[in-house]
């Protein structure tokens, strides 16, 4: 168990290291650098060279990568090219806002998805299953900006129940985001719920047709006891990994949603930084997002292992 844990952890660290290399190389390949961004029109000749020397951009790429990466490990993400502020503080507020958005969506979406997944799985091929499964395909495939636009029109403009756009700024207190956060949360929840629900459904169907559920039935176990004691603990295991993958998707989907609703989160900031060519910020956000993705998936692997007696006692005999 400990060996597996260490193995997974090392793989995760290796992945993050490769990501950081890719990010650094990609940003390096972009035309322009921090100095062209700072100096804008004046970026030429002597001034550009001075600036580069000042910021240390004229040194070899590998040296700068090592410096950047070791800084990132210590929590120092560098300086924004746009306003010369430390990136860590700029990103901090926005990261908090994005976590609020993602947290609300997960808190709403995961229970809903598990409930609907189990429901449709148990009522396989009945009308309620067909209806919900079809809605799920719609919810998970239509682009977020389309859903968002429709929701803004219906609930923001037509019915006027909730604001169609978030007006709070990046450093606003969390309470300032309500009720503007409602629509973005709904959009994110819809897609996520649909994905998780489909996996849970197919897993419940598999388990309910398994030999051990048939055996439990023939043992005289009442239906709901079969569902809760014999079927669900086994059926929900695969959901853990899918939830992790969905969180990975959330990190990308949140970018579009934040932009659509003008939500001052990490994704919105990333788009702005790319438009402004604020490359150190882009690098930092990419690294944060990738680390989060790897971390969540690692956690899911370990959690799935902890809940699965088969994996927990892997050392047991093999045939």
């Amino acid at each position, binding site marked *: 168990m400990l060996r597996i844990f260490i193995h997974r952890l090392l793989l995760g660290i290796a992945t993050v290291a490769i990501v950081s290399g890719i990010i650094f190389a990609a940003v390096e390949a972009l035309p322009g650098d921090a100095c062209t961004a700072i100096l804008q029109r004046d970026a030429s000749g002597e001034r550009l060279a001075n600036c580069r020397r000042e910021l240390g951009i004229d040194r070899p790429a590998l040296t700068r990568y090592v410096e950047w990466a070791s800084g990132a490990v210590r929590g120092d993400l560098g300086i924004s090219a746009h306003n010369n502020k430390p990136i860590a503080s700029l990103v901090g507020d926005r990261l908090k806002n994005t976590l609020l958005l993602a947290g609300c969506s997960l808190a709403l979406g995961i229970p809903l998805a598990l409930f609907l997944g189990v429901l449709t799985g148990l009522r396989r091929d009945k009308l309620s299953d067909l209806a919900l499964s079809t809605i799920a395909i719609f919810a998970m495939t239509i682009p977020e900006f389309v859903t968002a636009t429709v929701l803004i029109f219906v609930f923001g403009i037509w019915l006027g129940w909730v604001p169609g756009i978030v007006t709070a700024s990046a450093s606003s207190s969390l309470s300032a985001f309500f009720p503007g956060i409602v629509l973005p949360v709904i959009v994110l929840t819809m897609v996520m719920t649909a994905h998780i629900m489909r996996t849970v459904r197919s897993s419940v169907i598999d388990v309910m047709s398994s030999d051990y559920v048939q055996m439990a*039935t*023939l*043992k*005289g176990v009442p239906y709901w006891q079969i569902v809760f004691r014999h079927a669900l603990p*086994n059926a929900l295991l695969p959901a853990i990994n899918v939830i992790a993958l969905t969180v990975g998707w959330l990190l990308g989907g949140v970018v579009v949603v934040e932009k659509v609703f003008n939500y001052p989160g990490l994704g919105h900031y990333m788009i702005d930084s790319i438009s402004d060519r604020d490359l150190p910020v882009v690098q930092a956000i990419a690294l944060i997002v990738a680390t989060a993705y790897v971390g969540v998936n690692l956690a899911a692997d370990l959690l799935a292992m902890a809940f699965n007696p088969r994996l927990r006692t892997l050392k047991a005999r093999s045939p």
Partner: protein
Amino acid sequence: MTGDVLIDVQNLSIGFTGRSGKLLPVLRNIDLGVRRGETVGIVGESGSGKSTLALAMMGYLKHGLRVISGRSLFDGRDLLTMPSCELQRIRGGKIALIPQNSGQSLSPNLRVGAQLTEALALHGKLALSAFPARVIQLLQQVRLPDPEVIASRYPHELSGGQQQRVAIAMALAGDPEALLLDEPTTGLDVTTQAHILALLSDIAVRLDKVMVYVSHDLGAIARVCSRVVVMYAGEIVLDGDATSVLTNPGHPYARGLLASIPRLGNPNLPMALEGRPPPPGDAGPGCSFVDRCAIAEAPCRSERPGLQPLPAGGRVRCRLPERAGSIPTKRAGKPASAGGSFGEPLVRLSNLAISYARQSLVDQLLGRKPQGVPTVDRVNIEIRQGEVIGLVGESGSGKSTILKAVAGLVGPANGEIAYDRSGALPATVEQRRPEQLREIQLIFQNPDESLNPRHTIEQILAQPLQLYFGLSGDALRKRSIAILERVRLGAHYLDRLPSQLSGGEKQRVAIARAFAAEPKLLLCDEVTSALDVSVQAAVLDLLDQLRRDVRALSDRVAVLYQGRLCEIGPAAAVYSRPCHPYTEALLGAVLEPEPGARPILMAEDIVELSPPAKGCPFQRRCHRKVGSICESTTPPQRNAGAEHVIHCHIPIGELTSAQTVSTLGNAVRPHVQ
């Protein structure tokens, strides 16, 4: 001794809706009553509907099935129309199931103790405080050692035999009146199977339970049941006491089935039962067996025979039961192509060792050899031109691994394979010469796996023909048809996909593909174990035929345990006088469809994790262990006669004299030809 009727199935028909929208029956007009005190065996091949019938006796239908007509009574009440809350009390409480695959029938997330406690809570009349003691008692009842330890385990931590015992304990937990056994020993090793069967017949007698035992295996049924029901194509075709059904049955199908079972005591090949049962809904107006029946007459095709009483007792579904007796049940049939003189040595395995252990990264860096005991070790076998040699052993004995090494799919860790006087055979396929590749052909156990599901039979046969002989166009097609005919399949099979063929037909195609290469050495890996009994006989018969064509034959047997040789010698000698303790146990456990046959139980059914690092491979289970020498020293070779070698510490005189009379059965599956 027998009492009133407990289980009463009346005119039951069950079916499913096919793609065409037609209702296709799986069971047709089943009438079957089981009295208190009876042990009834229901025997039939796959698709005969026997499992559906068993589950219907508990009021359970699998997804997609529905009742067409009839009732399934238990103690006078119809289970098929009973509300589910009452059904729950009867299932497990009055009638309990012991399932086929216990490994998959126990919930993986619950400890064994918790699952037994659940059964007690549902049906027991015990106080809550008495549960733990009762759990231990139940586990003891099924002869599990260390019941406390077993109760705290998860199902996947137990061996197959232990899982099956837990399932039996679970069935006994509700103290039911009747036990339903659905192929309870299928998939277990023969020695384990013998233990479970002994336990079951003991329970039937000691605890006085009604038993309904469903199996494809007449040998297993012979050990437990007093009455046998034979099913064919969803119908009961024969019902009678075990002795008459197993020795002189009154139905042509039952006689054919008996004849198709290979028996160790008889050197003749089993007789094949050609053809296959009609698929559900496809039986004509007449008798469902008519197409395969040797004594069928014209009226058999037009009128469906009823289930009529036999004068000697029992019932039979046949118009001509008095004539059925003319069909032989034993292999009066042809003997296997006789042996005699063999040619030059073709293959010699010398001191062969095979290891699946992979070098870990650390080992690679330090330049160490892979750790661990090799899967197969110290195997010495010589195969001569035209000889058939059987490798015998249970799962994990290394039979398949040895075949794969000879085929060049697994490289040996030590020793060598000498071939056809050309010296050592290169270890892997990539290094071998085309001629060597052609001359050594491998046939796999399961044709579903070994035939590409997307290729037509023509494409499958074309592969060796193109590769080895460069055939194409008309020549290729002609040759393919000729090969198909040799395995008794027609040219119209060429365009079909494997999924459109039956199991036996698929295995014939696999055999045809191997023979298309015109091999000198044919490696057959349990080629019949995935097939129904009657089909097995046909495949063995076919192999024997083809063997004659390539001028081959004899019969030597090598008994393997944990990848090490125990005994090797002429088949007749090994089977009639097994010398090595393991051979003795193995052959003693083989099931024969003889009423009254009882197994000789020797080795306890434990799971071996890996072969012992030194000494005798069989040391942990041996019932005749000499002493510490068995654990420390590799057993010497002892000669028990011409070419008969035994690897054992026991002196040869003792080995050959201490004879137990054993019933003999067929454990010779993998042939190396």
